[in-house]
């Protein structure tokens, strides 16, 4: 009987693993099967020409650059706010502080809010302030979307840090700020993971940037010009009745995937470089 239980459970686990892997393989083959023939150098080096969405020539450079601008900008903002916040609730507030559980609770809620709500909120805010859809609007809204993800995952990793390191530093007569600087070195891989999770969510999201960043066939030259993004570019190309353009949407999806891969590999590389003396 026990033996049977063991076997059944093992089969369930193997099935789960196969399903996940299968779905991944299915998505990737579809994207590559349809996108690879349409992928060309023009796609990544040219702006969309006139009639691009009807099958004329051009590329999605506008969306690549726009997406990178937005993700880099929003990452900068969220790192700048997340790191101090996480350090504060972990090392400055007492362990059982009501305030820190309140912050964690609000982050959990923010985490679960759908991105279209952030988009709508950002849009409403921009109307109130009289700002047009722009790169800045997109950066701020995406920052709002990814901040809870970054904070919550960085917080989880920080909470796992043993008390030995802060205690050792404080007993050497370090001030709290000096302590935080050393702790951050130790936490660098954790921060990189948190950033990667945030990038994955932020760069692929269409709903937040739909109203706030707008869309354009050009590369934005300043923060108050609209910016194109890859998810929206894919959306518009898929909406075209021309099959060739639809295939270009898959090619754009490949580009988006490769960008995420490059970002995550380089982040892992620099993360491990910074933390070569990790405990």
């Amino acid at each position, binding site marked *: 009987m026990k033996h049977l239980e063991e076997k059944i459970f093992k089969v369930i686990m193997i099935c789960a693993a196969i399903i996940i892997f299968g779905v991944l393989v299915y998505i990737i083959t579809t994207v590559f099967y349809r996108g690879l023939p349409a992928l060309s150098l023009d796609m990544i080096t040219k702006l969309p020409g006139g009639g691009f969405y009807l099958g004329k020539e051009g590329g999605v450079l506008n969306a690549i650059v726009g997406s990178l601008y937005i993700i880099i900008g929003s990452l900068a903002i969220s790192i700048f706010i997340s790191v101090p916040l996480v350090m504060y609730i972990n090392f400055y507030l007492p362990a059982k502080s009501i305030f820190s559980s309140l912050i964690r609770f609000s982050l959990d809620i923010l985490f679960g809010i759908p991105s279209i709500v952030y988009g709508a909120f950002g849009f409403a805010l921009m109307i109130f302030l009289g700002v047009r859809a722009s790169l800045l609007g997109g950066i701020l809204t995406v920052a709002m979307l990814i901040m809870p993800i970054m904070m919550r995952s960085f917080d989880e990793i920080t909470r796992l840090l043993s008390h030995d390191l802060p205690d050792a530093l404080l007993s050497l007569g370090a001030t709290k700020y000096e302590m935080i600087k050393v702790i951050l070195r130790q936490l660098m891989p954790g921060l990189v993971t948190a950033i990667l999770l945030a990038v994955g969510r932020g760069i692929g999201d269409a709903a937040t940037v739909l109203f706030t960043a707008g869309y354009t066939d050009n590369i934005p030259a300043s923060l108050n010009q609209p910016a194109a993004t890859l998810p929206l570019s894919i959306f518009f190309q898929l909406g075209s009745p021309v099959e060739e353009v639809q295939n270009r949407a898959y090619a754009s999806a490949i580009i988006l995937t490769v960008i995420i891969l490059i970002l995550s590999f380089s982040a892992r590389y620099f993360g491990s470089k910074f933390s070569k003396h*990790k405990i």
Partner: protein
Amino acid sequence: MILTNQHQASGIHDSFIELNKAITLKKLIATQSIRIENLDVYIENQHILRDINLTIPEKSITCIIGPSGCGKSTFLKTLNRMHDESPEVKISGKVFVDDENIYGSHVNVIDTRKKMGLLAQRPCPLPMSIFENVAYGPRIHGIKKRKAVNQTVIQYLQYVGLWDEVRDRVRTSATRLSIGQQQRLCLARGLAIEPEYILGDEATSALDPLSTKKIEELFVKLKEKYTIILVTHTLRQAKRIADHIIFMYLGKIIEAGPTEEFFNNPKKQLTREYLSGSFS
């Protein structure tokens, strides 16, 4: 100065007398370094340390022994104000270090901690190279000149007997050292901030016998210059290296005195039971 000493002599606890029985009062005044008066510690309304009155003689090794949960580590933490980080801990009483109450209102906690080198149970190297680990303390306390820092690092690595083992890899990560080497590195790191006291919280309990022996030998060497207070679980270790023993039970000091007298001729019934292994 004389007033405080009289006051102290009048409000004296019997453990205090026992600890310094062999020493005349005059000599005692000259050698006292840490003096604790009416110390009570509460953690979340639990009375952890009860009315501790004690003088710890300088330039010697004092071992605190007692069963788990008797407040040994809590006591040690009161000496370098590490309880400051936990708001649930309430402390009353006075702890005089070099005749200054470290719980006084004008005391700078950084200065107090700088006087106390702490050696924790498990070695915790900083996420830096071996060199940077030892250099960290002097640097945050204002020694910036490269030559001076280099000199300090080499001096203390030599002092703990680590220099010859690591001289060709001081720029590599400290975590690659063996655990015994790490503990000696932590000791060197603590010594580099030039403390007057060394606190050890079961500093050898995670180490193998050989590394333990090295650390113990270092303690014996260090007592020429420093006052050493060790919390230990092993009676044999206390017997080997301590000059004075403090026996604690349920947050109280039961008995304190010179090592030989303590082990050969314990005064209290509870001490005899503990030493004979009736409870631990």
